Every structure is written in C-alpha cells, then in structure tokens.
C-alpha cells in the first residue's frame, strides 16, 4: 500500500488527534498527517535542539520504504548498539528515567536509539505496544558522562497547561524547560548546604506530549543525585513561586510524590454565622418584648376603659341637653335605677 494510507484494523481515531501535535511547528514543513497513516517526514533543515516531533502511528507498521529521507543524524550520534539507549520497558505506565546523559533519544519503547527512524522494535520486541511519540534530543555535551542511576531520587512532573489557561496556553518548549530547571535550582539553593546548585545540575528526562517529565538534581560533582527528601523539602517550600512562574496551580502543575501543603482554612475570628444569628436573634427578642408590652398596655387600657366611661358620664350629668328647645332630664346613671316594670318574677322571689 502506498505510504499515505495504512491499513488500519481499529476504529479511526478522531480527526482532532493528529492536529494537536506537534508542540511547535518544525522548520520546513511537515507534521504527520492523518490518523490513517503517516506522511513521509520531509525536513528541509536539520533538526535543531529541542525539536520535538510526534508521530501518530497505527498498529500495523507499513511495509514500504522508510520515509526518512532528508533527515540527517547529527555527527557523533550513531546508534550505540548494546548500550541501554532505550528507555527501559516497564510495566507501569510511568517510565522511570532513562540513564540520563548517555541518552540522546528519549523514546517510547520499541523505538531504537539513534536517528529518527520509523518505529522499529527494540529488543525485546513488543509488537503490542504502539509508539505514540518520538522525541529527538541531541546530546548537550560531546563528552560522555557517567551513568547516573537517579531512579529513586527522580520525580515525575505533570503539567496541564491547556486546562489551566485555555486559549492563552503557551507551548512547552526548551525555554520553558530551562525556566523549570532554573526554578528547581532556585529552590535547591534555598536549602542549607545546597547554595551552589546550578541550572546545569538539574536534569530533565522523558518529556512527553502530555507534558510530563522526570527530573533529578545532581550534586556539583555530577556524580550523585541529591536525596529525594531534600528535593521534596525544597520544592514544597517554594511551590508557590514555581506555580506562579508558569501561571499554574497545585492541580495543574503536579509533582507526583511531592504532596503540596494545603492552604489552611482562613477562619475569621468570629464565624459569620454567629454574627448573622446575633442580628436575627436581637430583632426577634426586641419584637417579642414590644408585642408583650403592647399587649399589657392594651389590657390596661381595657381595664381603665369602663371607669373612664363612668367619669365622662358623671361629667355629663349636670349638663342639660336641649332638644327642640325643651330641656330633657339628664339621665341619672350614677346610682343606677331599677325600673320596676322590667323586674322579673324570679328576682323578687328568693332563689332556692
């Protein structure tokens, strides 16, 4: 089949996928195209440090010519057969760091070291694994460095830039990595006895498209890595500065195995609910008191009421009402007369 189309045995992946890579555009053209296959990679210019290319592959590798024309390997980067040049295969998904300075190819398993090549199985071959990304990174220095076993003193870092910043997300490139190394070195310099930590002592490894990578900090002799506890302590103290340098927070810039110090809850001296409770309670008590007082006043008025009516009637007693020019006899209500006509039989007789 032609190089442009590869047989695919699985469901096609969403279109969007391939467009996400590359993290930065290559000089010259190309990025892998389409999920159905892979376009031949043609690079007009040689790769520069920090170029990162990702290719999307499908399960079956295409027979056919390896489209690697135009790519030049850098001098001195011949594949070293027999050297542990691949990232070792591991069962868990977080690959421990490779033997660092020797490695000039940070790779996924099943990709050989050396030039950017179409995925070829590393030994032992793992045909079930897919190669998602291939990164090329040239050696920093020409002289080979001793193998540093930093596996237990290395930490994995994971960034979620797009989650944090959305459209304003920046691309993760070597400059950002340099800043990261600077921040780590800065944090280490704040630890006692480590004031001489330089940026070059911080080593990054295994940068993936997720934007996750491993890092270690070596001592000035560059023979040993600093113990994990010190690095942990340093990062924890300066976590906030590191986060701010990247516009991220504890959730989007994760240091796995370094727990972040949570912000202690800022309790106001008096809890808010007590304040509001006090306000409502005072209003209720005042209202109750007012109602009780008004009730008492009403009752007092009612008790005084009949006696007041008597007074006014006494006052009226001496006034003579005139109606039609004829004076009427004022009602003598003070004493209370009993009108005999209305007396009942029963009241005359003494009750049983």
């Amino acid at each position, binding site marked *: 089949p032609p190089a442009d189309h590869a047989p695919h*045995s699985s469901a096609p992946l969403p279109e969007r996928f391939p467009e996400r890579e590359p993290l930065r555009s290559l000089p010259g053209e190309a990025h892998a195209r389409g999920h159905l296959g892979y376009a031949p990679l043609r690079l007009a210019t040689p790769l520069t440090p920090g170029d990162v290319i990702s290719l999307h592959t499908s399960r079956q590798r295409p027979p056919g010519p390896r489209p690697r024309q135009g790519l030049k390997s850098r001098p001195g980067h011949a594949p070293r057969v027999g050297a542990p040049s691949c990232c070792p295969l591991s069962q868990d998904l977080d690959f421990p760091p490779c033997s660092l300075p020797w490695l000039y190819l940070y790779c996924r398993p099943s990709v050989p070291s050396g030039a950017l090549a179409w995925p070829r199985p590393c030994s032992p071959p793992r045909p079930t694994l897919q190669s998602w990304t291939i990164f090329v990174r040239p050696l920093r220095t020409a002289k080979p460095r001793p193998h540093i076993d930093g596996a237990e003193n290395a930490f994995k870092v994971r960034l979620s830039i797009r989650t944090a910043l959305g459209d304003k997300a920046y691309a993760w490139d070597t400059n950002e990595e340099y800043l990261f190394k600077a921040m780590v070195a800065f944090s280490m310099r704040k630890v006692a006895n480590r004031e001489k930590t330089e940026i070059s002592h911080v080593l990054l490894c295994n940068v993936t498209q997720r934007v996750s990578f491993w890092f270690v900090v070596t001592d000035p002799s560059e023979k040993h890595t600093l113990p994990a506890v010190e690095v942990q302590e340093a990062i924890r103290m300066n976590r906030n500065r590191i986060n701010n340098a990247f516009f991220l927070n504890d959730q989007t810039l994760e240091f796995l195995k370094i727990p*972040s*110090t949570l912000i202690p809850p800022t309790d106001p001296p008096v809890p808010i609910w007590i304040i509001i409770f006090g306000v409502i309670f005072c209003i209720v008590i005042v209202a109750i008191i007012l*109602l009780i007082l008004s009730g008492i006043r009403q009752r007092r008025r009612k008790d005084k009421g009949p006696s007041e009516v008597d007074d006014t009637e006494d006052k009226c007693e001496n006034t003579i009402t005139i109606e039609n020019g004829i004076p009427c006899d004022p009602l003598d209500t003070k004493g209370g007369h009993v009108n005999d006509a209305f007396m009942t039989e029963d009241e005359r007789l003494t009750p049983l």
Partner: protein
Amino acid sequence: MALAPGPDLLGDGSGDERPKWDNKLQYLLSCVGFAVGLGNIWRFPYLCQTYGGGLGCFTVSSLIGIYYNTVLTWVLWYLLNSFQNPLPWSACPPDRNLTGFVEECQRSSSVSYFWYRQTLNVTADINDSGSIQWQLLVCLVASWAIVYLCIIRGIETTGKAIYFTALFPYLVLTIFLIRGLTLPGATEGLTYLFTPKMQILQNPRVWLDAATQIFFSLSLGFGGHIAFSSYNPPRNNCKKDAVTIALVNSMTSLYAAIIVFSVLGFKAANDHGRCLDRNILSLINAFDFPDQSISRDDYAAVLAHLNVTQPERVAGLGLESCHLEDFLDKSASGTGLAFIVFTEAILHMPGAPGWAVLFFGMLFTLGLSSMFGNMEAVITPLLDMGVMPRWVPKEVLTGVACLSCFLASIHFTLHSGNYWLEVFDRYAASLNLVIFAFLEVVGIVYIYGMNRFCDDVAWMTGRRPSLYWRVTWKVVSPLLLLTIFVAYIALLARAPPSYRAWNPQYDQFPTQQENVYPGWVQVTCMLLSFLPVLLVPAVALAQLLVRHRRKKKAALQDMHLKPQDSGAC
C-alpha cells in the same frame, strides 16, 4: 322569665369574644401554609421519581411540634451558613498536617461531611448519645423564639405573619423555576420525571405511597385545620375552602416537583460530566496524550479504540462507568434531598451563596407556616378547655407551650439526635394520623349521622352536599384509610425496625450501615405509635364515667327535691 344569658361561644379567658380572622385570605393562607410544608418539597418529588383524633390530636400535634422544629433548626443553621463565599460545604477541610483532606470527607463528599460531621456531629449508634451540640442548641432557641413571636397572640399575630410565610415560598419557587429551567441538563431531569415507568406503576406499593403522601401532605388528622377553621364565622362556605386548599396543595407539590427535577437533572448532568472528565484524565495521564485532547464527546470513541488496541492497560486503569441514567436514579428524599443533594447542586450554580440563602429561606418559611398549624392545634384545645385561669393572658399560655416544647426538643440536639428524629418521624406521625382520620370520618358519618351532617353543611353553605361527597365520605375514604392502615402494619411487621447509621469505621463507608433498633428504642416506637391512639378510647371511657356519675347525682337530687316541692305549695 329569666333572661337567658347570651350565646356563650367558647370564649377564652378574659371574657373577650373568640378571635376572628381579619379576612378570608388570612384563613386560606393559614390553611395552605399549614398543609404546604416541607413534605411538598422533598417527599413528593421523591415518590414521583421512584415509580413516578381532640386529645389524641393534641398529643400527636405536640409530638410533632417537638421534632418538626428540630428540622427548622437545621434549616436555620444552613441558612446562617449561607452568607459566605465560598460556601462552607464546598470544600473539604484539610487535615492536621495540611497534606491532604480529612479522611472522612475524602471518602464521602464535602457536602455529606458538612451535614453529618459539622452540623449533626452524628455518632455511629443510637445508643451512643453524646453531648449537646451547642451550635444546634443556639439555633433551636432562635427558631423557637421566632415561632413564639409569630404565635404570641394566636391568630391575631399568625394572621399577619402568614402573609409572608405562605407567599414567600411561592416567590422563591418561581425564581428557582426560572433558574432551574435554564440550567444545562434540566431537560433530562424533566423527561425523567414525566416518563412513566409502566412496570413500576403496577407495583401496589407505589399506590400506597401515593395515598399516604397525599394524606400526610394535606396535614390531616393533626387538628390544625379544625383549629384554624374554628375561627371562621359559622356561616362559611367550607366546601369551597376545602376544595381550594386541596387543589393548592397538590398544585404546589407538582410545581415543586418540576423545580426539584430540573435542578436534579442539572446535578446529574454535572456529575456525569465530571465522571467523564475523571476518566479522560486517567486516560490522558496513562497514555500521555496531550492535555485537553479528548473532549467528552470523543471519549467513547477513544475508549473503544484503546480497548481494542491495548485492553490490558485500559483495564488496569480502573475507569468508572459513567451513565447519565445512574446519576438520575440517585434519588433522595427528606433531609437527604435538602441538605445533601440540593446543596451540592447549588454549589455548581453561579452565585451559589445567593441561591443557598433563597433556598433555605424558603424551607424555613415553609416549615414555619406548618409550625403555626401545629402550635395552634396544641394551644386552641388548651384555651378551650380552660386549663389556665382566666386572668392569665394568652401570651403567657403560648409562652409556656413554646417553652415546654423547646425543653422537650433539646434531646434532638444531642449527637444521636438525627436518629431520634427519624424515630419520631416514622412512628409518631404516621399510624396515629391514619387512625384519627379514620375515626373522624366514621364518627361523623356513621355515629353523628350523615343526614344530620348534611343538614349542618346546608345551614353553613346554603346547599346540601352532592352525591359525590356523600359517597366518598361513606365508602371511599374509610376504605382507603383502612387499606393504608393495614398496609402500614403489614410493612412494619415484616422486618424488625432498623435504621441507617453514619459510621466512618464501617468498611463500606460511605454507604450507611444498617442497624437494628435496640430493645428500649423499639418500645419507645410502639409507645409513640399507639399512645395517642389509646387516648381516644381512654377519653371516651372517662367521659362515659363522668356522665354516669352525673346521671346518678341528678337522680339523687330529684329524689330529694320531690318531698320539698310537695311541701312548698
């Protein structure tokens, strides 16, 4: 002829005449407020979702008044805590060394933690009483003070307060309706509500639940309606009032169900989205895909692809299964709905503290208007029976009633208070009311006489009740009530009564542990269920004895009088 004294209406102490409603609206609002309670908001929608007697009354009302106000206390506590941003139940508190969150909170959720730990501070067992929660005690004092303020002079003050407490909930419900319908996911919730599940409708339990719900929703059998109606003028179209109140109650339940379900649909959609996001994050982290490269819509396709190509790795990730139906099925009723589900839904709405204040304010006023009815059902019989001497003002009587209920309800502020509240809710308020309502109907229709009753109704309303009313009173209502009663007994007898305890030490935490009630609690349950009912025959017996003695006395007096009479003439 002696002048007969004027018709002595059942006057209260100081000789003034019986209080009256200012206008009809006050009476209707009071009854509606009494009927429309917390149950309309949080019990009816739950049931939709799962398939779509005088001294006795007094006892029941006082029992209910005691524990109902505890719910108001909780609502008040949440209301007071809603005036801050961020809301206190939005995040778990960090643990002592500030490296993670409190373990109990992490395993359950911040909302459950706030409810069970920071509000109730609940123990794992009903036997374990614990001490009094001072913040709940303080809120209890406040809520009883508010209740006292509103009923201090009986319906005089209640009638004024009811304008606010009965109408405010409808205003808030409408605001929530507009907000709820505009939330994403609301349509799913509403479709779920209104889609009948035919096979569930065939389950008789559904119909039993429906009957009990409408019965309790109308707050029948408490004596509250009787108390309120006794303040009406004698010639009153009670038929129209009854129909109005029943209709308003049912409409409110439906209205509330629409709102609750749109909010629940929003919450389910939200939870579903977050479940997907968690899975997507696992995939991205495991396979090192670029950040944000899988959207929620693509997730299914990507997962399918990966399952085919690398099934072992995918299986090792431990992805959750996210189905919208599962989240919609997570129903809750009662305190669970208000304090856990709804509070969580509110967290995700923009402007959360404002919505929380509105929601809990609405619940508070709803409960308050139901409390008015309860307390009136307690105080009116006390006044009518003349328990206090005449010179004691009404304010003192209401104060004493409120104080005694408050002292009795302090028990619910203990650590195990929530379990006791469930006991009261399940046993004090269920069987008794059914029995009272049954006795009331049977007493009036069969003992007082249907004809006499129809004459009274004709005198009050101007028209005899139609055939529909007579058939329902004579046949349908007693039958339904009897069925509900029998079904309740059958359900109770089926299994020993148990309760759900919040136990962080339980291995399946956060699922609640099912415990059986200890013996003495079971005895309390029985007492609560049957004591008020037993008062009915007890009082009947007492009245029989009194009448018998009076007859004997009258007969003796007659015998003494006869010789005197013959002598006087």
